[in-house]
């Protein structure tokens, strides 16, 4: 629902800024979804006086105007045919945002910049009505009346000082579907009572009951029907203030009578309907249900089919309105209407909801009736509207309200226990505090016994039916965010990794990737463990020589497994193991616990053919790139892109060649080919590739804090480059140089070919890279890409001694 700040201020004084009111209402449960500050909308728009207008030297249709904006004279180029010296106009200065671009099919707003128009400097723009969003006229500039003062802010000139809030009202708060309802909530914040609108009625001598009669035949569906009659009115457009205020809250002005009913609707929340009294047969209103299948044409010109459940407002002969939903075309207010009957009724919410749903027709009226209106407000609302109509459309207001009220509202009194309130919310409020909190929101409460208060629920709060509803109001008034935040359970705040669950994921992943899980015993013979090249961790009292040393690496025992399998004819192996290793720090005494370190490791092992022998595909021996691929796939899954391979020479006594692996910049293990002499010592004469990783590093690097990087909107451009470099230089070095030199446009670098042979010359190799260039905010030009390529080629030449191959 749209709510006007100026309108709210008629009922309650407050001086919150729009941001503060937004926050405060939201925290009361009236969620402000957005707001529009009209004064801000017209920032940098001033009233200007055209003091001189000359034809643009280079354009026939343009004028160059000198415009007095109060404290300065600005030169502005204007294309409107009607601009002339002496006019008071609206000037949008540099920085202003034009609400409606009349040269754009969608009318998208745009910002005024200082500009040269055909060689003449323009410091702003003189605006049309359409451009200002104040009307539809786009034929020329808007000329203001002569009294306007140059330099006046336009927001002030047009009285555009309002702030319009869009508030999402929850279904239980029908009472807040009006300015008075929202003002009441604000009243609870500033602890002020509402100033209700004063209604002064000038009634004539003739009683309304002389000219019309009202009958309710279905009191369940219509417990109350109130009406007034005004004669000899003049239908016409509403005054500007009324049109503006309705437009501001999203209601289209129609004529003075209909506008008043809408005004009272938005003010009080009570829907009204105006009938052309002369069209009511026998001057009677009969409220009854329709005949099954009856047809009726509503105000919008559509024919509706009714059911025997649909409540209708009828005259002596025919239906004239679908009660609480929409009036009929047959009795609508027209330009010639002289007498109106103003309806102000209360309809059963369920009945209206069913009708509205059945017809697929929701209106401002049905929306409020189905949520529940204030049955005690019908007379006040109709009086308010009658007084306004008299003021705006003249006429004679007949004496008295026609008020049929067969089902009187029973007073609602609710008992609420102080102890219960405190035990549900988790507070320890005193009875007096609770009473005062409830009074803030106009819920009068008195003490009824030691632990009990008695709340008299006003007729506008039909959502309050029992104790729990009172408890909610107490919590709301106390402030949800003032209620202590506590738990009775102990909750673990640490970001502990469930390593057992993660291990299961790792196992499942590797099994899915075709690995077999192996488990070797933590104790091996000393000769095997010696292969690891680390200080032996010996059992003090071994059960046998085969189980004399603890594992310092998972690799030696895995090689034993390879040996065993090869002896049984199985040579193609993809194995993994999760197990503990134990290290001895030689700088500490081996008799102290400090000297030993235990940690979990993951081992991957590849040997034999890369794919099983099968029809239609060739197989080959696994190589180090297969290993690198498997490790990359694994780490990409568990550690995202937080891992790196580092080439280093021979630091691992088990492998040659060997790569180091880091996760989040910390050493996490190695991958490489098991040294030939080690393998051969176990009679393994085919290459074996292994990778050993610290499980702790995987846990730490586990990509939980991954963040999404937006997908590129603009297409990438591909280019290939090939260089000849020293064979000993790792490709990674070249790749890094390319990436760095290619910043910021080079988004991706992929090595797609590596060759060494006759064409490269001895001691050289050729590396070919596919480069992708991309920008997050534009499509790249050929020149931008060429410039970046040039930088890359120069960098590779300089830093890697690389020669570009053409």
């Amino acid at each position, binding site marked *: 629902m749209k709510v006007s700040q100026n309108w709210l201020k008629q009922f309650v004084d407050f001086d919150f800024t729009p941001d503060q009111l*937004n926050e405060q209402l*939201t*925290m*009361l*449960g009236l*969620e*402000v*979804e*957005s707001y529009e500050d009209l004064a801000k909308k017209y920032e940098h728009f001033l009233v200007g006086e055209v003091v001189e207008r000359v034809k643009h030297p280079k354009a026939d249709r343009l004028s160059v105007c000198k415009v007095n904006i109060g404290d300065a004279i600005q030169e502005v180029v204007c294309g409107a045919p009607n601009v002339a010296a002496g006019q008071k106009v609206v000037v949008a200065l540099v920085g202003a945002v034009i609400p409606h671009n009349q040269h754009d099919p969608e009318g998208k707003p745009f910002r005024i910049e200082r500009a040269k128009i055909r060689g003449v400097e323009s410091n702003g723009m003189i605006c049309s009505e359409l451009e200002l969003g104040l009307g539809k006229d786009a034929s020329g500039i808007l000329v203001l009346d002569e009294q306007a003062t140059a330099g006046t802010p336009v927001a002030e000139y047009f009285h555009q000082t309002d702030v319009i809030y869009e508030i999402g009202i*929850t*279904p*239980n*708060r029908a009472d807040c579907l009006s300015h008075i309802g929202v003002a009441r909530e604000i009243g609870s914040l500033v602890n002020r009572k509402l100033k209700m609108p004063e209604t002064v009625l000038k009634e004539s001598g003739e009683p309304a009951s002389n000219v019309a009669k009202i009958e309710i035949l279905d009191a369940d569906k219509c417990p109350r029907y109130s009406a007034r009659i005004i004669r000899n009115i003049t239908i016409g457009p509403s005054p500007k203030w009324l049109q503006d205020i309705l437009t501001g809250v999203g209601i289209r002005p129609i004529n003075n009578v209909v506008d008043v009913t809408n005004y009272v609707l938005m003010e009080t929340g009570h829907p009204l309907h105006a009938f052309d009294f002369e069209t009511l047969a026998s001057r009677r209103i009969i409220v009854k249900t329709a005949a099954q299948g009856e047809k009726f044409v509503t105000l919008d010109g559509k024919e509706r089919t009714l059911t025997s459940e649909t409540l209708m407002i009828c005259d002596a002969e025919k239906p004239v309105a679908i009660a609480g939903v929409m009036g009929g075309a047959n009795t609508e207010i027209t330009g010639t209407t002289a007498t109106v009957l103003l309806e102000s009724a209360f309809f059963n919410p369920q009945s209206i909801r069913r009708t509205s749903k059945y017809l697929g027709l929701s209106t401002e009226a049905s929306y409020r009736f189905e949520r529940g209106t204030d049955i005690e407000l019908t007379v006040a609302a109709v009086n308010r509207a009658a007084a306004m109509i008299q003021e705006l459309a003249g006429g004679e207001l007949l004496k008295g309200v026609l008020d049929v009220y067969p089902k009187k509202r029973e007073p609602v009194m609710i008992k609420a226990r102080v102890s219960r309130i405190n*035990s*549900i*919310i*988790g*507070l320890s409020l005193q009875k007096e505090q609770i009473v005062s909190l409830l009074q803030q929101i106009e819920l009068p409460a008195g003490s009824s016994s030691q632990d009990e208060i008695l709340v008299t629920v006003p007729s506008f709060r039909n959502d309050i039916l*029992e104790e*729990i*509803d009172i*408890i*909610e109001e107490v*919590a*709301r008034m106390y402030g*949800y*965010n003032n*209620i*202590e*935040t*506590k*738990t*009775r*359970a102990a*909750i*673990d*705040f640490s*970001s502990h990794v469930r390593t057992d669950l993660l291990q299961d994921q790792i196992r499942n992943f590797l099994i899915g990737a075709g690995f077999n899980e192996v488990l070797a015993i933590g104790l091996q013979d000393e000769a095997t463990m010696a292969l690891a090249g680390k200080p032996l961790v010996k059992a003090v009292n071994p059960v046998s020589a085969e189980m004399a040393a603890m594992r310092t690496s998972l690799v030696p025992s895995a090689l034993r497994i390879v040996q065993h399998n090869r002896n049984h004819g199985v040579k193609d192996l993809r194995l993994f193991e999760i197990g503990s290793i134990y290290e001895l720090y030689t700088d500490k005494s081996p008799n102290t616990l400090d000297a030993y370190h235990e940690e979990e490791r993951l081992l991957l092992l590849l040997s034999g053919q890369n794919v099983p022998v099968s029809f239609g595909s060739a197989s080959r021996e696994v190589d180090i790139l297969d290993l690198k691929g498997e490790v990359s796939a694994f780490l990409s899954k568990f550690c*995202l892109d937080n891992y790196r391979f580092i080439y280093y020479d021979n630091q691992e006594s088990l492998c040659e060649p060997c790569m180091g692996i880091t996760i989040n910049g910390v050493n996490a293990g190695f991958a490489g080919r098991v040294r030939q002499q080690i393998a051969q010592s176990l009679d393994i004469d085919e290459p074996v590739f292994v990778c050993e990783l610290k499980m702790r590093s995987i846990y730490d690097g586990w990509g939980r804090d*991954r*963040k*999404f*990087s*937006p*997908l*590129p909107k603009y297409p990438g451009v591909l280019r290939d480059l090939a260089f000849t470099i020293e064979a000993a230089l790792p490709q990674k070095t070249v790749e890094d140089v390319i990436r760095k030199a290619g910043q910021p446009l080079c988004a991706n670098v992929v090595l797609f070919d590596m060759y060494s042979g006759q064409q490269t010359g001895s001691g050289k190799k050729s590396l070919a890279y596919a480069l992708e260039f991309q920008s997050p905010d534009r499509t790249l030009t050929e020149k931008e890409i060429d410039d970046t390529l040039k930088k890359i080629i120069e960098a590779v030449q300089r830093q890697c001694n690389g020669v570009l191959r053409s």
Partner: protein
Amino acid sequence: MPVWGYRNEATSARSLVAFHQIEGLYVDRGVTFSELKGTLVAFAKQFYGSSIKYRFRPSFFPFTEPSAEMDITCFICGGKGCRICKHSGWLEVLGSGMVHPHVFKAVGYDPEIYSGYAFGMGIERTALLRYNIDDIRILYENDVRFLKQF
């Protein structure tokens, strides 16, 4: 086990018609709104980081009273206001409240003896906040460039 849920809602950068929902319900003697807050705050701090800012707003659900929605500071704009948070600086992450006495009565529990709280949240919205995704619709576009990031 979260499963697909469906609702009548306009699809936007932060709302989907089809989504996955997690629900929580806690019933005991003497459960308070204060504890509901405590539990949800503990969750939010653990899940989104201990430095997040949050607030509880009164709201309405037919099966809880008092009802509350929990907002946390918008991750995209850091609270300054943007498209995702509809320029409010806050993002709603869950709905919650004290179990309505009518619900207890309907299942044969005496609301004078038992009280409890309930909450529900859409996993997709949760994922947005956790992974800094600025448009919820991308979750079901199944763009492989997106899928590869996770």
